């Protein structure tokens, strides 16, 4: 019945209640209130940030605050860009994010493919060990991880200050392995057999059969890989102490001392642009990825 009246599943309040006069009025009121409140609460601060970057140094700290910049000064954005070296910081962030993405895609996809389709002896034990890391609170591991990066076991490399310190630890991501493995499991094994009868090795099968079918999940993993690097704070603060090598999230915080408020706010607005753009472009994939890992109630 619900399917007939609308594609949406039936919820708390029935369509019949809503179509009554009183129901319609209440619904209109609730909808309007929600739209106004949500727009104010979630867009309001962003509006304040963008316009704050256009205000002068004195207007930004004026009491009472002004809702519109009196004499918009786009020059503040330029000052923020040069003074806080935002181009450098943005480049660093991109470099870390896409490096991490590359390593995660190559290593995590290969590992998930191995445990899902090639199924070597002890594969399940290794998988269990990878998934078990999801239970360990990450803050607990910060100290030993730092020591490990300081002096890599066996090889004795010091990774501090190098991008490797950010790239490699992101591969050890149990959640990625979990998502990828579950997706690969849903691809029928018959396709694998058919490929191997045609003489394709495991690498060829992965490349020509599994990967093209896995685009949705690869998209989800990629977005999360990029966003996680973009949002990380404590770890890059520890392993990239040089302000010139820091990602933007951290660099703004370390470089913001002694800089006028309006310049910082302009810098914040600039730093928000890339991830917000990623989100608006890929919001469908992000939303589906968010629920891909959760359980059905």
């Amino acid at each position, binding site marked *: 019945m619900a399917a007939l009246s609308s594609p949406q*599943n*039936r*919820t*708390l*309040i029935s369509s019949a209640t*809503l179509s009554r006069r009183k129901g319609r009025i209440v619904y209109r009121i*609730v*909808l309007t209130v*929600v*739209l106004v409140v*949500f727009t104010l*609460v*979630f*867009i309001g*601060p962003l509006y*304040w*940030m963008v316009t704050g970057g256009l205000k002068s140094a004195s207007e*930004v*700290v004026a*009491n*009472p*605050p002004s809702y519109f910049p009196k004499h918009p000064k786009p020059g503040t954005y330029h000052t923020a860009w040069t003074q806080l070296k935002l181009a450098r910081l943005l480049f660093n962030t991109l470099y870390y994010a896409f490096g991490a993405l590359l390593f995660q895609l190559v290593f995590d996809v290969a590992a998930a493919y191995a*445990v899902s389709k*090639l199924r*070597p002896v002890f*594969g399940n034990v*290794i998988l269990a*060990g*990878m998934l078990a*890391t999801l*239970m360990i*609170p*990450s*803050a*607990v*591991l*910060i*100290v*030993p991880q730092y*020591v*490990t*990066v300081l002096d890599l076991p066996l090889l004795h490399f010091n990774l501090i200050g190098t991008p490797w310190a950010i790239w490699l630890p992101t*591969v*050890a991501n149990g959640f990625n392995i979990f998502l990828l493995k579950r997706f690969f499991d849903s691809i029928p094994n018959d396709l694998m057999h058919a490929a191997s009868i045609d003489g394709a090795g*495991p690498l060829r099968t992965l490349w020509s059969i599994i990967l093209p079918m896995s685009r949705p999940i690869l998209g989800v993993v990629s977005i999360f890989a990029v966003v996680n690097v973009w949002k990380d*704070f*404590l770890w890059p603060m520890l392993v990239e102490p040089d302000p010139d090598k820091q990602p933007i*999230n*951290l660099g*703004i*915080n370390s470089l913001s001392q002694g800089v006028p*408020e309006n310049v910082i*706010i302009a810098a*914040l607005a600039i730093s928000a642009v890339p991830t*917000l753009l990623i989100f608006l472009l890929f919001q469908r994939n992000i*939303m589906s990825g*968010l629920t891909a890992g*959760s359980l*059905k*109630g």
Partner: protein
Amino acid sequence: MAATTVPENTTKRHAGRPAGPDRRGERRGLSRKVSANLQAYGFLVGAVICFLAFSWYPMVREFIMSFQDKKRGVTSWVGMKNLDRVYHDPFFWTAWKNTAEYTGYALVIGFALPFFVAIILNELRHAQAYLRILVYLPVMLPPVAGGLLFKYFYDPDYGLFDHILKTLHLPTSQWLDSSHTAMISVVIAATWMSMGSATLIYLAALQNIPGELYEAADLDGAGLWSKIWHVTIPQTRMVLSLMLLMQIVATMQEFTNVFVLAGGNGPENSTMTVVYMIYQYGFRYNNLGSAAALGLFLLLVLVVFSGVYTRLSRTSEQDG
């Protein structure tokens, strides 16, 4: 190492079979199996090395470091000294109290609010996509940008929040500058920044509830609240309890928000969390052994907590 055990496995499986003319074929199959396994391990090796270096080995090392001290490049075993030192730190209990306070506030605000918002969004027939994007927008903001922005809003001299309160003739607040309100101010900012992901997860769970259940409740004459209580909550219980656990574990590890918003310890150490204290020990006082020891306390508390929690939720599921 693992590869060498492969022949054993295969021979065991065929142990009962008499040796006969097909033995050669079997050996060929066996070597093919070994090479297939080797190939599979080849695919695994990159990830396994990363897990070993950055996850499995650090876990072991966390324990080892807690009982070690490093002075002038010489590492020595010191037994319980590190654990003893952190335990008797004058701020040990302050940090735990603040962490519990943060988690408590985060549950009252950060756990209930997204569920409430998700229920409302699920009822609306219009603008769903727009509202969903709105709620998730702050999640995509770099946390430092969100944090510094809120710090600006909280300012008692020129901040927007006190201005709004004043216009509405409500009492203003010192927000981050007072030890009484610093922690709740951090939680409010953190909730704004992160509630989007929880909301969307709840929304997905709500949309999976079969509509017939609500129709049946309607026929029984159930009101709005009793429908929420008897249908919505039981139907989303799995997600709710999982998210509750995840949120408690996550909020007990709070660092970034108190660091950016309150400069770490906050006025009169009112926002000093356990993880901030770990950071101070390890990277301010350069005492990694004590930092690891404090981490061990945190691990212990979280493990005991999750254990008890899973136990409780399992028994309550059996009862219900």
